[in-house]
């Protein structure tokens, strides 16, 4: 199911494919589901009236591109949606618009580059999408300004339990929430599958306002830095060492008590865990924690290599461990 979720195209503001997929999987629980005006999919499960509510959130959207103009020669200019490193864009395949028209991000070949061009990464202005159009008219028949483009990357298993694909940030989180909901083992909690996280955690702000939780957990994918000869002091998370518990990021300070609860949950579930040894980056936990009168909020994230690129790598066992850990945490909070 991770592959199915990751393959869906859902750049920020255009999450409907992901939302429909999730709604279909949760169809047997349709009385618990609502969709708000921003497009957040909310599932309210089983809490008695006036009892403190627990909110789990995972965002449906992924980073991608938006078509900004069509050039005379039929090539498409674009802007990034969300945080993208230009250097990963060159020569990558994309799918454009609602029908998923194939295209590729074109680059000047090395033969034609001046020496100084070779020494620098491609500037955003120099990049374009080539989708095989003759000219502007030809392109205009199939592409409109404002159309989204998503990375064209089909998820596959590598080795034993490693997966390569796009959008694990945060379809991994969506999968974790979905599994917890499908288990349906009597746990009361609210799940928010949110929109527009990558452009400023917008959906979660509205979802938290609606759900009014007492306590919340953002379930995310986070950068793993275990690939190069990184000094151990600079490693943020490691693949395969279990879900990462944050103590602080740019948007939230996780309370000592909540970190302790999560550590205890992992230990009692018998799964490995690690701390996210990095304080940068933002998550939905920020806006959730500041909703209304304030909400105690923590973050659990699955380590992911090459995050925000068309080809990220994630380990299935970290996802499994996260499900177990969060389930145990929910049980302790019932």
């Amino acid at each position: 199911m991770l592959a199915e979720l990751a393959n869906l195209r859902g750049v920020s503001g255009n999450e409907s494919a992901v939302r429909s997929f999730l709604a279909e999987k949760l169809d047997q629980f349709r009385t618990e589901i609502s969709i708000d005006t921003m497009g957040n999919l909310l599932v309210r499960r089983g809490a008695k009236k006036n009892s403190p509510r627990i909110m789990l959130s995972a965002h449906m959207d992924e980073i991608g591109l938006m078509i900004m103009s069509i050039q005379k020669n039929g090539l498409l200019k674009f802007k990034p949606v969300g945080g993208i490193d230009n250097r990963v864009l060159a020569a990558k395949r994309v799918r454009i618009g609602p029908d998923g028209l194939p295209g590729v991000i074109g680059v000047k070949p090395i033969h034609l580059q001046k020496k100084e061009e070779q020494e620098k990464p491609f500037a955003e202005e120099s990049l374009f999408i080539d989708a095989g159009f003759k000219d502007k008219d030809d392109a205009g028949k199939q592409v409109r300004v404002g159309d989204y483009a998503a990375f064209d990357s089909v998820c596959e298993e590598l080795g034993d339990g490693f997966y390569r694909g796009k959008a694990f940030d945060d379809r991994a989180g969506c999968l974790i929430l979905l599994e917890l909901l499908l288990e349906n083992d009597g746990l009361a909690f609210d799940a928010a599958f949110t929109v527009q996280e990558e452009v400023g955690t917008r959906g979660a702000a509205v979802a938290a306002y609606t759900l009014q939780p007492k306590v919340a957990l953002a379930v995310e994918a986070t950068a793993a830095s275990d690939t190069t000869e990184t000094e151990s002091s600079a490693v943020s998370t490691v693949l395969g060492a279990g879900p990462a518990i944050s103590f602080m990021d740019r948007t939230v300070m996780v309370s000592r008590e909540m970190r302790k609860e999560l550590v205890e949950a992992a230990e009692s579930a018998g799964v490995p865990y690690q701390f996210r040894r990095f304080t940068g980056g933002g998550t939905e936990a920020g806006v959730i924690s500041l909703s209304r009168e304030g909400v105690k909020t923590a973050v659990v994230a699955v380590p992911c290599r090459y995050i925000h690129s068309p080809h990220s790598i994630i380990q299935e066992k970290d996802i499994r461990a996260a499900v177990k850990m969060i389930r145990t945490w929910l049980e302790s909070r019932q």
Partner: protein
Amino acid sequence: MEETIKLLTEAFGPSGEEETVRSLIKELIKGKVDRIFEDDLGNLFVLRDGPSPKLMVSAHMDEIGIIVTHIDDNGFLRLAPVGGVSPHLLPGQRLRFRDGVTGTVYYEKIKEWKELEWSKLYLDIGQSDAEGAGRMVSIGDPACLDQPFKVLQGGRYMAKAMDDRVGCAVLVEVINSLPEQLPQAVCFVFSVQEELGLRGARTAAYRYEPDYGLAVDVTLVGDTPKAQTMAVSLGRGPTVKVKDSSVFCHPLVRKQMIETAEKHEIPYQLEVLERGGTDAGAIHISREGVPSGAISIPCRYVHTSSEMVDSSDVNYAVAFLKKLLIRQWPSVEENNYG
């Protein structure tokens, strides 16, 4: 007052770990309030009942600090900032954890001072391996600067965390000396996580729904050698804030403040702060908007281990705030632009 400032500035309380400060404050104001409670983020609400309008007065409990991100094989700790901390101010400084564990900061070999980034700094707590260090400190533990409070000859105070424990001390002093009856309801909020983006004040204002907001905090000064131009000096009175990067203080609130100061002959300075924010920034955009202002205590060397204020500014700030709360504030209807 001096004793209160000493107690509060020496207490441990980096953003997110304000409990020591909170307990101290509760102790210091015992029996002087109508109601007292905490919210889920740790804000402390101290209420004095009264008729409408409702005033919220906020000072933040948290201070800047660091958080441990890594413990290496030789027992050295790696750090990340909590709030606006400059790595250049840390080498040679002592840091202290909640339970008293103390260490000193130093740096890896560098060629030039400007290469000093967070990744070059480490904290030595006197352990020789990861196991030893791990028994004393965990990843994710915050620490504060470790410096005692000092009274300087001539009446200036020097301490870490003057920002904003001196504001907390002003509130404590005012709470303890207000008359039995007040012309309006007042909620004193000792807020959390101001240094991370005015977080506590935001949820506190949502909860209390005040008609007016006032923050009591420190502000920068322009009276040191070749300082950035700023018309605020130590010893010339607390300020009536005009603006900072988080708020344009409401004209009606400023008017109340200036009238009060002039009527009671309290010296004050007008404060235009180019960079920096305070709780008023979060309060004034809560819900439907809250007319807000701020009293600041001029402070040198803000966000270092030796923040300096003048005792006369502090005492005048207490008098100023007290007079402001005894004053009858306009009803909400009168203040309505519509």
